[in-house]
């Protein structure tokens, strides 16, 4: 049942550009949504499953984005190795940052993640020789065509890149699923529910937090690399504090601690502003109101709300 629904969703997503031909704007939005899902998956592992809020996570996405941009632009690397290296570098930065930060608890940790996000975004804006400063790094080349046997798949077109983004997103979702059902994932869930108890049962809480922080920063880095190569520019505005806060909003809206939470959150986050385009000035206002309502009535996001309603329906 669940497998069938997942398969259907994947097939729908894959056929989207074919089903709506000649709609470049829709395709652009869909690709942008996919670019948002990947870092949200990283934050979902950290926040939704382990219970650690990071308010600076797009900083790590930026590390991945800039690294991939430099590798593709300056060193002429192909897309996939550049994305992988960006993710690894972001994970390594996460590991280094995590060692001091994760010794702090609850709100102290949250404040420090905010500072980390600010520091990273300041570096992106000011290290002109490396990051291009406020202008960023424009002109990232499109992925080269993929040749499997005799078939040549062009990835440089909007549709081609949509499929690239879809493949990367599915990879991240697969990783999220594998982590969550692993013994590592159960230890993370135990840490979220009761740290003292998890430690008493033999979980090295600090080591687990550090591992998931690095993993989550790495996934965010992959998302940043994907976004940079889609927009063909690594720019500071993509990875600033506002972007980090938006990422937290995406995870909260979708449903923290649900596998599909980042997907739903990202769709709502991109689609809702589009629907409200007519009332551009009311956009942020409506968005704020939605967040407050969710926090009050659906602390586990839209998926949490849906699950609760379904259960109530089944009970009655």
């Amino acid at each position: 049942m669940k497998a069938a629904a997942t398969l259907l969703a994947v097939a729908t997503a894959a056929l989207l550009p074919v089903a709506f031909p000649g709609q470049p704007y829709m395709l652009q939005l869909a690709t942008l949504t996919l670019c948002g899902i990947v870092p949200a998956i990283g934050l979902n592992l950290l926040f939704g499953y382990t219970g650690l809020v990071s308010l600076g996570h797009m900083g790590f996405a930026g590390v991945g984005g800039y690294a991939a941009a430099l590798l593709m632009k300056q060193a002429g690397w192909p897309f996939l190795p550049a994305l992988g290296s960006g993710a690894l570098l972001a994970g390594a930065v996460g590991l280094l940052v995590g060692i001091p930060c994760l010794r702090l608890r609850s709100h102290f940790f949250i404040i420090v993640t905010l500072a980390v996000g600010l520091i990273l975004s300041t570096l992106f804006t000011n290290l002109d020789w490396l990051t291009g400063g406020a202008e960023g790094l424009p002109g990232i080349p499109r992925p080269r065509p993929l040749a499997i046997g005799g078939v040549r798949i062009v990835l440089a077109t909007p549709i081609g890149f949509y499929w690239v983004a879809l493949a990367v997103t599915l990879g991240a979702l697969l990783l999220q699923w594998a982590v969550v059902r692993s013994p590592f994932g159960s230890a993370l869930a135990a840490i979220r529910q009761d740290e003292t108890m998890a430690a008493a049962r033999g979980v090295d809480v600090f080591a687990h937090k550090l591992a998931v922080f690095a993993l989550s920063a790495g996934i965010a880095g992959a998302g940043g690399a994907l976004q940079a190569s889609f927009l063909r520019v690594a720019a500071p505005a993509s990875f600033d504090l506002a972007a980090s806060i938006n990422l937290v909003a995406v995870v909260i809206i979708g449903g923290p601690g649900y596998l599909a939470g980042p997907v739903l959150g990202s769709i709502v986050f991109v689609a809702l502003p589009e629907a409200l385009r007519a009332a551009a000035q009311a956009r942020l206002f409506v968005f704020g109101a939605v967040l407050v309502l969710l926090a009050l009535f659906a602390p586990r996001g839209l998926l949490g709300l849906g699950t609760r309603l379904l259960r109530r329906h089944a009970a009655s």
Partner: protein
Amino acid sequence: MPLLEVAALRKRFGGVVALDGAGFTIDGPGIVGLIGPNGAGKTTLFDIVCGRQSADSGTIRFENRRIDGLPPHRLARLGFARSFQECRTLNEETCLDNLLFAAQDKRLGHGLRGIVAPPAQPRDAARALLATAGLERFANTPAGDLSFGQRRLVEILSTLMAAPRVLLLDEPASGVNPTLLATLAAVLREAAPRLGLLLLVIEHNMAFVMGLAARIVVMHQGAILADGTPADIRADRRVIDAYLG
């Protein structure tokens, strides 16, 4: 070689002396009760043995190895397990998953390898253990939906699932109704010899602990007041004055 040796533990919280030279030696597996009035230092002693707090001075040896100062997760891997006075379960997980989590190898490397190759889980053993306490029908119910007494049983069954060598139970009988209490006593009486377990039980329910333990250690004002069989303790003048009344 004694199994567990606690010697001259001292612990102060500001002006309050919680432990004032408490110590005892336990030679082998079995069930030992730890009783005493509120504030005698029983839970502090447990917390120190399990690494949740550190003592100001004193030593703890497990099979002649110094273990005081080790963090809780290291002690757990040596074979220590505990239940908490306030009862701690994973309330969002089902009872079955609570037991399976307790049984799982908690080392980080093992957990990470499990992302690629998930290990087999002892589901049958967990179900069987739930059944011994009459909880099999709650196997797929979140632990948070159970009554306090049932959650207490789930907590203790979870600790047993990890096959510990030393199990410390902090007031297992509190908040548990008489029927469940009889079940709990039966489970513990059966499990302790089967697992070759040293079971240390803090308890205020005298009937429960005296019926369960072969040896009782009485604490009073941070020190050991008396130590002996339940019959000796019941007859001990000092214990009657200080605690039993």
